[in-house]
C-alpha cells in the first residue's frame, strides 16, 4: 500500500484541480475547504512516506507496471521525501494566507482559476520531486512553466503581462536546453531513466565524452535559467515584483528551489562524482555561486521597490545554495538543503508580510515604510524577524545555514569562501537594516498624514506568525532536521 502513496498524492492534486470548475455553482467556501482537506491528506501521506523511507529505504513505483527501460518510474528517496514535506508545509501556510484575501489585484471571479493553477502547480512540483526519469522531469517542468507564469499574469495589470511574457520566453529557452541535454544523453546511452543512465554513464564516459560534456552544459544552463542562478537571473525581479504576493512567495520560496533540487539530482544521481571531478564542475559552481551572492546583494541595494529588493535578495540566496552544492561534500550539500528550507521560510515570510503591508496601506515603495512599525507591529515584526534571519543573526534559521556552509567551506580547505559569505551578509545588512530602522525607530510627527489602514483578515496574520515561529524554531533547534538531512545526503555517495 505504501508504495502507492506517491502517485495517490499527485492524483489527489490533479483531481482537485479538475474538480474546481464544477464547483462554480456552489459556495466558494466549499472549494477552499476541499483544498484544505486535500493538502492535509497529502501531508499525512507524505509523513507516512517519510517514516517508511527512513525505515526501509527508497520507495519505487512503476506506472502501469512497465519495466524501467520503457516505463515511467517514480522514486522517493529520503531527500525527495523531505523536500516534498517542505513544499507542503510552505504551501499550507501560503494557502492559509490566500484564503484571507485571495490576493491583491485578482478579480473575485478569478479566485477559482487561481486555485486551479495552484493545485496543478502542486501536482507538477510533486511530479518533479518524485520522477526518476529525465524526460518526465522535462514534462513536469513545462507544466510548471505554464502554471507559474499564469499565476503571475492572472493579475489584470499591465506590467504583469510583460514580465510574464519575458518569464515564459526565458523559461522556454531553459526547458528546451534541458531537453537537448536529455536528447544527447539518450543518444549516448539509450536511456532516460535516472538509475539506468547512472550505470550506463559511469562505463560510457570516456567513449562518449563529447556528448556527456555538451549535455551537462545544456542541462546546467537550462536549470540555471529556471532557478535564477546569477548570470541568468534577469527575469526574476520583474516577475516577483509584479506578481500577487502569494504568487511571489510560491515562486521565490518553492519554485526556484525545486529547480535547484533537480540540479542536485542531475549532478549527483545522473552524472556522478567521477565525471564532475574530471570536468572540474566544482570550481565553476563555486565561482558562479559566489558571484551571485555578491552581485545579487549589490543590485538589491539600489532598489526602491520593496518587492524588487526581495527578488534581488533571492538571487543572492540562490548563490549560497549553488555554492553549497559546488563544494561537493556531504556537509556542503546538507548546508544547501537546509538553506533551501530556511530560505523558503524566510522569503515567504518577507513576501507575505510585505503583502499585508501593501494590502493595508496600498504602498510599496521602501520610503513609505517609515514609522510603519508602530502602526503595524505584527506584520512589521514578522518582517523584522525574517529580515534579521536573512542577514544571519543567531537564533534564526538563516544563521544555522550560513554557519553550516562556512564549516563545510573550511572542511573543503577553501576558507576564503567564508569571507565571501560574510561579505554577502554585510551587504544584506546594508539593504535590510535601513528598512527596519526607518520602520521602527524613525519618529514621524504626530500631525503627519498617516496612510489609511484597511482591516486585515485573520488567516493572513496567522500565516505569517506561523512562518516567524518556524524560522525561530529552526534556528534554536536545528539539530533534528540537520540530522535527517545529513542522513539523506549520505545516500548520494559524496565524500564526507
Amino acid at each position, binding site marked *: 500500500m505504501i508504495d502507492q502513496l506517491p502517485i495517490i498524492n499527485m492524483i489527489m492534486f490533479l483531481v482537485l484541480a479538475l474538480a474546481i470548475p464544477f464547483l462554480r455553482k456552489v459556495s466558494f467556501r466549499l472549494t477552499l475547504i476541499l483544498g484544505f482537506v486535500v493538502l492535509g491528506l497529502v501531508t499525512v501521506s507524505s509523513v507516512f512516506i517519510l517514516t517508511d523511507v527512513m525505515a526501509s529505504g527508497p520507495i519505487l513505483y512503476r506506472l502501469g507496471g512497465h519495466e524501467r527501460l*520503457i516505463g515511467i518510474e517514480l522514486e522517493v528517496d529520503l531527500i525527495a521525501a523531505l523536500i516534498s514535506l517542505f513544499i507542503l508545509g510552505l504551501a499550507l501556510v501560503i494557502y492559509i494566507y490566500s484564503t484571507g484575501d485571495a490576493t491583491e489585484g485578482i478579480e473575485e471571479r478569478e479566485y477559482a482559476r487561481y486555485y486551479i493553477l495552484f493545485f496543478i502547480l502542486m501536482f507538477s512540483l510533486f511530479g518533479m520531486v518524485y520522477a526518476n526519469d529525465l*524526460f518526465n522531469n522535462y*514534462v513536469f517542468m*513545462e507544466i510548471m*512553466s*505554464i502554471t507559474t*507564469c*499564469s499565476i503571475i*499574469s492572472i493579475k489584470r495589470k*499591465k*506590467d504583469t*503581462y*510583460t514580465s*510574464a*511574457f519575458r518569464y*515564459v*520566453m526565458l523559461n*522556454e*529557452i531553459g526547458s*528546451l536546453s534541458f*531537453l*537537448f541535454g536529455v*536528447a544527447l544523453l*539518450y*543518444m549516448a546511452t539509450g536511456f*532516460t531513466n535516472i538509475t539506468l543512465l547512472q550505470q550506463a554513464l559511469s562505463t560510457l564516459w570516456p567513449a562518449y565524452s563529447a556528448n556527456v560534456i555538451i549535455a551537462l552544459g545544456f542541462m546546467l544552463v537550462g536549470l540555471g535559467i529556471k532557478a535564477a542562478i546569477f548570470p541568468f537571473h534577469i527575469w526574476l525581479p520583474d516577475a516577483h515584483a509584479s506578481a500577487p504576493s502569494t504568487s511571489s512567495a510560491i515562486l521565490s520560496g518553492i519554485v526556484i528551489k525545486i529547480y535547484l533540487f533537480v540540479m542536485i539530482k542531475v549532478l549527483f544521481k545522473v552524472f556522478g562524482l567521477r565525471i564532475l571531478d574530471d570536468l572540474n564542475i566544482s570550481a565553476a559552481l563555486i565561482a558562479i555561486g559566489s558571484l551571485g551572492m555578491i552581485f545579487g546583494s549589490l543590485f538589491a541595494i539600489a532598489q526602491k521597490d520593496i518587492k524588487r529588493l526581495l527578488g534581488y535578495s533571492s538571487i543572492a540566496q540562490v548563490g549560497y545554495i549553488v555554492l553549497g552544492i559546488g563544494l561537493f561534500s556531504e556537509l556542503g550539500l546538507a548546508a544547501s538543503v537546509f538553506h533551501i528550507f530556511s530560505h523558503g521560510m524566510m522569503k515567504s515570510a518577507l513576501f507575505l508580510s510585505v503583502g499585508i503591508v501593501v494590502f493595508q496601506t496600498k504602498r510599496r515603495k521602501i520610503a513609505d515604510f517609515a514609522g510603519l512599525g508602530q502602526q503595524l507591529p505584527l506584520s512589521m515584526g514578522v518582517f523584522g524577524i525574517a529580515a534579521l534571519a536573512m542577514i544571519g543573526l543567531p537564533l534564526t534559521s538563516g544563521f544555522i545555514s550560513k554557519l553550516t556552509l562556512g564549516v563545510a567551506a573550511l572542511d573543503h580547505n577553501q576558507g576564503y569562501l567564508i569571507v565571501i559569505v560574510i561579505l554577502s551578509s554585510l551587504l544584506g545588512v546594508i539593504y535590510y537594516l535601513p528598512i527596519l530602522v526607518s520602520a521602527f525607530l524613525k519618529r514621524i510627527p504626530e500631525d503627519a498624514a498617516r496612510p489609511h489602514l484597511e482591516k486585515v483578515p485573520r488567516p493572513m496574520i496567522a500565516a505569517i506568525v506561523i512562518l516567524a515561529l518556524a524560522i525561530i524554531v529552526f534556528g534554536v533547534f536545528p539539530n533534528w532536521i540537520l540530522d535527517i538531512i545529513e542522513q539523506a545526503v549520505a545516500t548520494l555517495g559524496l565524500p564526507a
Partner: protein
Amino acid sequence: MKIIESIMENINYVGAIALFLIGLHTVVTHRNLIKRVLGVNIMGTGVLLFFTSIGNVAGGEPPIFIPGSVPGIFVNPLPSVFILTGIVVVVSITVYSLSLVVRIHEAYGTIDQQEITEMIKEEEYHD
C-alpha cells in the same frame, strides 16, 4: 571534401542544431513579440528533430508488428513517443504566450518590445 562528406552524413544533426540556433537568435534579438514566440517554436522544432533522428535506424521499418510476417529491423519507437509529448507541450506554451501577446497589445497598443520598454520607463519616471 571530407568535411562536406561528414556534414552530409550527419545532415539531420546539423539541421537540428541550426534550427535550435536560429530559434535562439530570434528569441533573444527580435523586437516583435510574435516573432519571439515563433523563435521558441523553431527552437523546439530543432530539439524535436534531433530527438527523432536519434531513433532512426538506416533501412529500418516502422515498428508495427503484423501477425504472420517476419520482423525485420525496426526503427526505435521510443523517441517518437517522447516527441509526441514534446509537440503537445510546445503547442500549449505557444498558445499561452500568444494569449499574453494579445493582452499586451490590449494594454499597450503595440507588440514592439522596444516601444513597450520606453512606455514602462516613462510611467516609472512619472511615479
